[in-house]
């Protein structure tokens, strides 16, 4: 097993699936000749040819709709949005076409929408967003958000093989920052299954995406101070593995929900509501959220840091819940 980056894991999963199944095609802006803005598809054009690695015009709704149609016809398109922010341009095709198609007609649509998401590197308002909650609100879409190279590859393979539209949000900040041993073999991380990334008895931190790493760092720090946090990485937001975090909260009696997306209407609200509804009697402290402030992602470092959840903010909130 090689130690590879999160980005390489995505690239590897995509390449493996294209080798395995000729129905898998990729399309997006600058992905063929240029190899993608983040180089996820570097070398793909040479290996798979222009019929399967398609540079699209700057036309998100157009190529998203095309991917949906091709998926109905049996191809398994993987659409790359150059930045997840731009997925807004394709919103109608995703939420009104892809999401509802199977419910309406019983006709499967196996399409994956990859969205490089997330902030923390001064991308400003249009290159930093975390749009998962736009899609978790829509029945018929699966939404996944891997935090580690292993999960990134396994979830991408699972998404490509899934017969439904899957929103696959990959965090740009993890691309080259996180490395892990990843099997070169074929494996799948099943969609809809969370993972406990660290066990603990005193506080449950429910999180996903980049914040898994911040949360683990906080757990480590708190452990040195005598409190054990259980870090539940949701991995999939839809379908959601409720049992994973409910079981944990029933054990610890305390829950902190952490994500990088905005607080209001964020997915953490859903998690908090489920805990309140289904684990009320287990709660020994209020369910608490740590999320980005409700402002657009600002450019200047001082502003972006003030806006994003940070390890320090998670730590403070965790102490608050633990000491309640």
């Amino acid at each position, binding site marked *: 097993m090689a130690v590879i980056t999160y980005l390489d894991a995505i690239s590897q999963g995509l390449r493996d699936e294209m080798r395995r199944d000729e129905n898998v095609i990729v399309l997006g802006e600058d992905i063929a000749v240029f190899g993608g803005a983040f180089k996820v598809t570097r070398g793909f054009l040479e290996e798979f040819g222009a019929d399967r690695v398609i540079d699209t015009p700057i036309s998100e709704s*157009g190529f998203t*709709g095309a*991917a949906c*149609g091709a998926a109905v016809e049996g191809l398994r*398109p993987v659409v790359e949005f150059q930045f997840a922010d731009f997925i807004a341009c394709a919103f109608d095709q995703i939420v009104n076409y892809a999401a509802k198609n199977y*419910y309406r007609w019983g*006709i499967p649509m196996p399409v994956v929408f990859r969205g490089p998401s997330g902030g923390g590197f001064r991308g400003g308002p249009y290159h930093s967003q975390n749009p998962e909650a736009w899609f978790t609100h829509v029945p018929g879409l699966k939404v996944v958000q891997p935090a580690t190279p292993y999960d990134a590859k396994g979830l991408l393979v699972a998404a490509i093989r899934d*017969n439904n539209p899957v929103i696959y949000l990959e965090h740009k900040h993890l691309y080259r920052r996180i490395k892990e041993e990843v099997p070169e073999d074929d494996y799948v991380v099943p969609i809809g299954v969370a993972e406990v990334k660290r066990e603990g008895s005193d506080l449950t931190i429910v999180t996903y995406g980049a914040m898994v790493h911040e949360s683990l760092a906080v757990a480590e720090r708190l452990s040195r101070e005598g409190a054990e946090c259980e870090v539940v990485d949701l991995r999939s937001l839809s379908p959601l593995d409720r049992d994973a975090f409910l079981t944990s909260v029933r054990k610890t009696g305390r829950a902190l929900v952490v994500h990088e997306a905005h607080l209001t209407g964020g997915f953490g609200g859903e998690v908090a509501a489920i805990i309140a509804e289904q684990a009320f009697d287990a709660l020994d402290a209020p369910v608490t959220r740590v999320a980005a402030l409700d402002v657009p992602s600002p450019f200047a470092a001082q502003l972006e840091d003030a806006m994003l959840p940070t390890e320090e903010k998670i730590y403070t909130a965790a102490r608050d819940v633990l000491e309640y």
Partner: protein
Amino acid sequence: MATENPASFLDPALDRTSIAPESAIDRDQLVTWYRTMCLARTCDEKLGALYRQGKIVGAVYLAVGQEAICTGVVSLLQPDDYFSTVARGLAGWFLRGVEPKHVIARWLGRDVPPSHGRELGLFLADIEHHGIAPYHNGSMASWIPSGAGFALAFKVRKQPRVYVAFTGDGATSPGDFYEGLNFAAIHKLPLVVIVENNCFAYSTGNAAQMPVENVADRAPAFNIPAEVAFGNDIFEVRRVAKRAIDHARAGNGPYLVEFKTFRTRGHGEHDDMGYVDAGLREFWERRDPLRLFREYLAGAGGLGEAGVKAIDDECAASIEDAVAWAEAQPAPAPETVTDRLFAP
């Protein structure tokens, strides 16, 4: 008041009040097309009645006045070609084997496939049985991109198949129209766009919708061929559409045809068309596609009045049977509401 000057809407060179094929057509084919159009007309009128009786709830949208276009175009398709249309292309569905009883049952919200009560009768997708590809209905432009996707799949697999998107004049305004055609044109995909220009996007006339006289005038932006033709003459529809389909099938890329026509009923049956002036209605009444076809068939077509009336009567009886069947179908069970959200 957004009334249209008929002369400016329809180039007098395209206009006609009688129709005939350029060359002889097999009589069985003629009867099939006429029966299809007549069945759609009869079905639509029945749907209007059911709506007024309160048996169809919500809204009902009819295709009256536009039957020649879809009939003519679909008559040119190969069995493995795909097309998408809302119920404005009802006759096209029927020509591909969709049964009126199923359409009516869907309008009544009954538990019949493939939607099982999840969609209005306005929409239908059934690839397996009828080659009708699924689309969504944000606007009628939204299936130009997905149509390009079907065409992309044909091209990637090197299959000589085409996808025909039926859409309307109003649907040439949203971005999807451009994005879909742009994508298809870049990749020379076998996509045929049939624009049924029926004068109005709901209540808003062409002049308030677009700065060009014809939808086809937009085609140069995509460097694709486009034509304007009279949509109420089934023979003219077939002549023009054949060029388009052949072009696309040969790998030359998309083709756009704009058929001028007129919707003689409201946008839906809840719309009394107060925005259309009497002169325009009269103009198009004389050019009703079913009437033009009927006059040809009863006359030069050789069926005679009795022969045509026999078909009319047969359609009327068949729709009555279809309604009885549809009304007898069960409603979907409430507990099925969460079924079939995700494909296995």
